[in-house]
C-alpha cells in the first residue's frame, strides 16, 4: 500500500446491511436542488427537467421511475455533471459543485461520483481488453501504483463483481463477453475509483431478463457492503420496488411523487404512479381495464392511451392532466402543490388537496 488512505476499513465491508432509518441529520452524499434543464431547439426550449430535487444517501438506493422522455436520463447526466443545469444546483456533501469543465475537476468529481451507462455494448471501447478498461481509472486516480498492485487491484475488482475466474476475464475483449458480463465490467470500472455514489442509468434495461436480477443483486450487495449511495434509473417500477429504498416518480420533467419504496408502490398517491404500479411492466389498456378494484374512480383506458406530453410546450397546470383519469378543470389551470401524504411520502396532485375520498383511497 502506498498510503494508509488506500484501503477502506475492512470491518465496514463485513458489517452487513448498514441501512439507517431516515434521520434528520442524515446529510445526503449527492443531491439535486431544484434542477431545471432546458434544451434550446429551433421550435423552442425542450423542458427536460423542471425544478427537480432529489437526494442520495449513503448505503441507500434511490430509484427514479418514469416513462421515456420523462427526464430521468437527463437527471442522471446532470448529477454526473455531464449536463449543465439551466437552473438549480448539484450538491456534493452539502456543497454546491460547479460544472466540471476542467479535466482536473472532472477527475476529482469522478473520484466520488461514477456514472454507469445504460448500454454496456457502447460504454466499453470494443478495442480494449478488460485489463485496459480497469487499469485506466486505477491509474488516473492513483498514478504511482506499482504494476503488481495494479494487477491485484484489477483482479479484486473483477472478483467483487463476480467475474470469476478473474484472470480469464482480464484479457478478454468486450465482444467476447455477454451483456451481463459487460455490464459487470462497467460496474467494476466504476468501483475502481472507490466512489461514494454510483449513478445507474437504466443499468439493466439492455440486458436479458434472466440476467437482470443477477446484476441487481450484485448492486444491492455492493451498496450494502460498501455503503454506496446509488441512483437507480428505470422505467420499470417493479424492479424499483424490489431494489430501491426510495422512489421518485418523474413525469414530463417534474417530480409527481416521492417517498419510500414501500409507500410509493404499496399506496401510490398520484394517479400516474397508480397507473405505473397497476400496469407494471407496461401500461397497456387491458391491464388498466382490470382496474385497481378500488374506489370507483377507475382509470379510463382512453385517457391513458393519449399521446406522451409535448415537452416544448408542456401542458398547463398539472402536466399529467391530459392523460389523467381524475382530471378536473382546476388541473389545467394551476400546478398542484406538493402534499405530504405520509411521513416522507409526498405527491403533487389536486385530488390530494381537494378530495377526501381520494386521500383515504390512497392511504388504504
Amino acid at each position, binding site marked *: 500500500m502506498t498510503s494508509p488512505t488506500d484501503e477502506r476499513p475492512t470491518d465496514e465491508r463485513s458489517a452487513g446491511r448498514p441501512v439507517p432509518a431516515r434521520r434528520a441529520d442524515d446529510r445526503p452524499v449527492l443531491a439535486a436542488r431544484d434542477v431545471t434543464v432546458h434544451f434550446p431547439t429551433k421550435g423552442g426550449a425542450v423542458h427536460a427537467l423542471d425544478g427537480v430535487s432529489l437526494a442520495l444517501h449513503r448505503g441507500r438506493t434511490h430509484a427514479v421511475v418514469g416513462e421515456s422522455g420523462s427526464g430521468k436520463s437527463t437527471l442522471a447526466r446532470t448529477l454526473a455533471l455531464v449536463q449543465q443545469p439551466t437552473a438549480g444546483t448539484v450538491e456534493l456533501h452539502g456543497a454546491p459543485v460547479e460544472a466540471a469543465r476542467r479535466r482536473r475537476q472532472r*477527475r476529482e468529481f*469522478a473520484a466520488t461520483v461514477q456514472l454507469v451507462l445504460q448500454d454496456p455494448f457502447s460504454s466499453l471501447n470494443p478495442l480494449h481488453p478488460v485489463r485496459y478498461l480497469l487499469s485506466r481509472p486505477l491509474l488516473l486516480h492513483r498514478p504511482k501504483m506499482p504494476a503488481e498492485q*495494479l494487477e491485484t487491484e484489477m483482479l479484486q475488482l473483477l472478483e467483487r463483481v463476480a467475474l470469476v475466474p478473474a484472470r480469464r476475464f482480464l484479457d478478454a475483449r468486450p465482444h467476447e463477453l*455477454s451483456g451481463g458480463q459487460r455490464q459487470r465490467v462497467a460496474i467494476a*470500472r466504476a468501483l475502481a475509483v472507490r466512489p461514494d455514489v454510483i449513478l445507474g442509468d437504466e443499468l439493466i434495461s439492455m440486458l436479458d431478463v434472466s440476467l437482470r436480477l443477477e446484476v441487481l443483486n450484485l448492486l444491492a450487495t455492493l451498496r450494502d457492503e460498501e455503503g454506496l449511495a446509488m441512483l437507480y434509473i428505470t422505467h420499470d417500477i417493479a424492479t424499483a420496488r424490489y431494489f430501491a429504498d426510495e422512489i421518485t416518480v418523474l413525469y414530463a420533467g417534474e417530480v409527481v411523487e416521492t417517498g419510500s419504496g414501500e409507500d410509493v408502490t404499496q399506496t401510490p398517491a398520484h394517479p400516474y404512479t397508480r397507473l405505473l404500479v397497476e400496469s407494471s411492466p407496461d401500461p397497456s389498456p387491458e391491464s388498466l381495464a382490470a382496474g385497481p378494484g378500488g374506489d370507483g374512480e377507475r382509470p379510463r383506458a382512453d385517457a391513458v392511451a393519449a399521446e406522451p406530453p409535448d415537452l416544448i410546450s408542456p401542458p398547463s397546470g398539472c402536466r399529467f392532466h391530459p392523460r389523467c383519469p381524475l382530471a378536473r378543470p382546476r388541473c389545467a389551470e394551476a400546478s398542484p402543490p406538493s402534499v405530504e401524504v405520509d411521513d416522507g411520502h409526498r405527491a403533487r396532485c389536486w385530488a390530494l388537496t381537494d378530495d377526501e375520498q381520494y386521500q383515504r383511497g390512497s392511504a388504504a
Partner: protein
Amino acid sequence: MTATTPATAPATTAQPRRFRLRLTRNRKARAGLLILAVYAFVAIFGPTLVTHLLGQSPTAFTGQVLAPPSAEHWLGTNQDGVDVFAQLIWGTRSSLLVGLIAASTSTVLSVLVGLVGGYYGGVLDQVLGAVTNVFLVLPGLPLVIVLAGYLQGRGGSIAVAIVIGVTGWAWGARSKRIQTVSLRNRDFVTNAKLMGERDARVMGAEILPNLLPVISSTLMLAVVTSILAVSGLEFLGIGDVNTVSWGSMLRQAQERQALFSGAWWWFVPPGAAITLLGAAAGLVNFGVDEITNPRLRVPRAPRVKGGRA
C-alpha cells in the same frame, strides 16, 4: 496504438490477442502481407543481391540490345542494352520508398486534421475544414507537376514524394473527421472524459484505434496512388530522371516504342509490379477491416453471445 496493451504480462491461460498476431491469422491479410514482405525484401536486399550474385547493373551496357529473356538476362535487355531485371529490382526500391513517404505524409496529415477537427469541433473544426476544402479543390496533378519540376534539382524523388503527400491528404481528412464526429459522442468516449482522461489520450487511445480501418484503408490506397502518381510523373519525364524506377522504365519503353518491337519483357514487368502491389495493399486492407471491425469477422470458436435483444 502500442500504448493500448499495458506492459505487465502475467502468466494467464488466455491467449494474448494483439493486433499483430491476429493480422497474420487472417487469410486475406496474410496473403497481402506475404506479397508486401517479398516487395520489401526485394527493395532492401534486391539491388545488392543482383549486383553480387548476378553481376548485373541497372545502368551498365551488357553488349546485347533488346535481347529476350534468357538464363543470363532473366528479363532480357532493353534498347540501351541494359538488363531489365536489374532495372526492375532497383526500381522496386525507389518506387516503394517514394510511395511510402508520400503515403505516410498524407496519412499523418489527414489523421491529425480529421481527428483534431472532429474531436474539438467549433471554430477549430471550421478552420481546419476550410483548409481541407481548399486542398480538395486545388487541381492536384498540375500542382504536383509544377512543384515537382521546381523541386527536381533540390531534393530528388523524396521531395516529389512529400509534395504528393501534402497535396493528397484532404479526402482522407474528411473521412476521418466524419468518423471522429460519430465516435466523439459514443458512451465510451463520454466515459473516458468523465473519468478525467486527457484529451490527447481520449483521442489517441479511445478514438484513434477505432479509426484504424479508415486509416489503413486510406493508407494502403495512398501507397498505391502515390506510386501511381510518382510513376506517372516519371512516365511524363517530370520526376528525377537519374533514378531508375518503374515509371522511368515505362517511359523509356514508351519512348523507344517497345510495343512495336515486340519487347514485352521491357514494359510488362514494371506494370505487373505496380498491379501486384496494389492487389497486396487491397488484401491487407480487407484483413485489417475484418480485424478492427469484429462484426465483419466470422467467429471460429463458439463463444458467449451477447444478450442484446
